[in-house]
């Protein structure tokens, strides 16, 4: 979109402002923790570490429990994202396409988990999981994480489905497509942006989830986040180690974020969240 009466100097000013923002808000904090992670002593007033070492990194890379946490994290995140998508789709479809009594109630209920602190749910559910032999199992962690990311996924998918004109489905039907073919050839391809947005958010949500996973899974089932949280909590906060932890945790998330941002449609994500 061209601004009304755009001028070259205003554009440059905006570019400059953007550059400064990015540098200060993102470059600086990430840069500092990157430096801390290789620092061998860094006391004031030094602006750069007094020495450099790889030992904080090596310590973590040689830790077998960290490796199993990475594997757990990836498996859990993958399964959670997939399962959430499968569970969310029919419900999102119903919310997007049907009108029925008490619809508002269902909508609010679906959003409610977003506004209730995770620890309340985790504590209650954790105790049931013990009875069901789900505590400290992958399955238990997956279930409780699905519960956490489901609301946003349903919300985004529903708003994605709402955006598909019903004429398209009708047209496909008259051209000989049965329900299944409509889902395959029309709904799924047209929901790709919404599914990507929902998938990315549930990936991030699952990957960084802490409280529920910790209470239900840890320490038998550790994810990267719970495994590394210990090094970041007030009790065990050792700055260089914590910095390594942060960077390890950020790497996969950023990778996925960068990969998907090329195909990600902001408006879809915004539409899903910007409507309650």
């Amino acid at each position, binding site marked *: *979109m061209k*601004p*009304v009466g755009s001028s070259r100097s205003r*554009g*440059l000013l*905006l*570019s400059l402002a*953007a550059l400064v923002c*990015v540098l200060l*808000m993102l470059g600086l904090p*990430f840069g*500092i*923790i990157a430096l801390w992670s290789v620092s061998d002593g860094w006391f*004031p*007033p*030094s*602006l750069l570490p007094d020495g450099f070492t790889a030992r904080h990194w090596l310590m973590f890379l040689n830790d077998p429990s960290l490796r199993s946490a990475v594997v757990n994290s990836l498996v859990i995140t993958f399964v959670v994202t997939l399962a959430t998508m*499968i*569970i969310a789709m029919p419900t999102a479809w*119903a*919310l997007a396409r*049907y009108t*029925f009594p008490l619809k508002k109630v*269902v909508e*609010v209920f*679906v959003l*409610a988990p*977003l*506004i*209730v*602190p*995770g*620890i*309340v*749910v*985790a*504590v*209650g*559910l954790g105790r*049931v999981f013990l009875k069901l032999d789900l505590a400290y199992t992958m399955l238990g962690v997956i*279930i409780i994480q699905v*519960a956490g990311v489901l609301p946003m996924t349903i919300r985004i998918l529903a708003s994605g489905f709402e955006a598909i004109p019903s004429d398209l489905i009708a047209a496909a039907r008259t051209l000989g497509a049965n329900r299944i073919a409509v889902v395959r050839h029309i709904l799924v391809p047209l929901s790709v942006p919404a599914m990507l947005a929902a998938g990315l958010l549930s990936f*991030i949500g699952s990957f*960084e989830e802490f409280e529920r996973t910790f209470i239900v899974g840890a320490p038998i089932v550790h994810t990267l*986040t719970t495994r590394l949280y210990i090094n970041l909590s*007030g009790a065990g906060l050792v*700055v260089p180690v914590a*910095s390594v932890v*942060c960077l390890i*945790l*950020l790497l996969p*998330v950023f990778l996925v*974020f*960068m990969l998907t941002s090329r195909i990600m449609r*902001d408006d879809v994500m*915004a*539409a899903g*969240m*910007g409507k*309650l």
Partner: protein
Amino acid sequence: MRAVHLLLLLLPGVGVLLATFGLPLFWAVLGAFGLGADGAGFTLIPLTDIFAEPKYRKGLMMSLYYAIAPTTLTLFVAIPLALMLQKSFIGRKLLNGLYKLPLAVPAIVAAFMVLTLFEQGGFIDRLLMLGGWNIGKIVRDPLGIGVILATLWKDVPFMTLIIAGAFGAIPSDTVHAARSLGATRLRAFWAVQLPLAMPGITAATLLCFVKSLGNFAAPSLLGPAYPLPLSILMYDSYRDGDWMAIYAMGTVLILAAFVVLAAYYTLTAAAFGTGKAASSR
């Protein structure tokens, strides 16, 4: 037939949420009144304690403060940023890709980064030292500036994303029309863009608020040692196995969130009721 269809469609999502969220929530509220598995009979004491004991009362205030203050500030950053993203300038695409990064950063990591930067003797302080200044106490300070900074860092991209979406959905012709009718740039913003984007803005504000209400990591690392918000007190009670207190605090937090949600629906129904009806199929 149609009703069966609908129920089958709703079942997976709503069913999972009923089992994994509705039920624990129900127990929590039950527990707060001394009923349920851990209860010793109906009582209001744990709930009234929250308003009677200064530790809890101030904790509730602190929770509300940590939710309201950053959310309000975020609005003032996110709206201009969202507007800026509507303009075209060199590097816009890059900015548009990068500003969302904090969305993917766990809250505890954000809090940690604020600590390394803004702590007394932290990086910013060391920079200021070169000029003979010092940063003062903005971590562990009574106003919780550090907490607000960390929350802001996470919330600004979140809110900007939603608000930019809301602005982007306004046809550019409406603004042009307003300008051609003699509205200044500012006036067009106030009279046309802002009202049209309002549903998105209020939704974003609400989401930020409720997310921050349960904020744990930032207050734990950056907040003053006293008073502690309910989220931390809940964690402490969990450590002590004090279920009643957890459930009572949880119930109060849920209540607070629902009050805000109800207020939101009442207000938006009044303000956008007509618009919503028109846009619905």
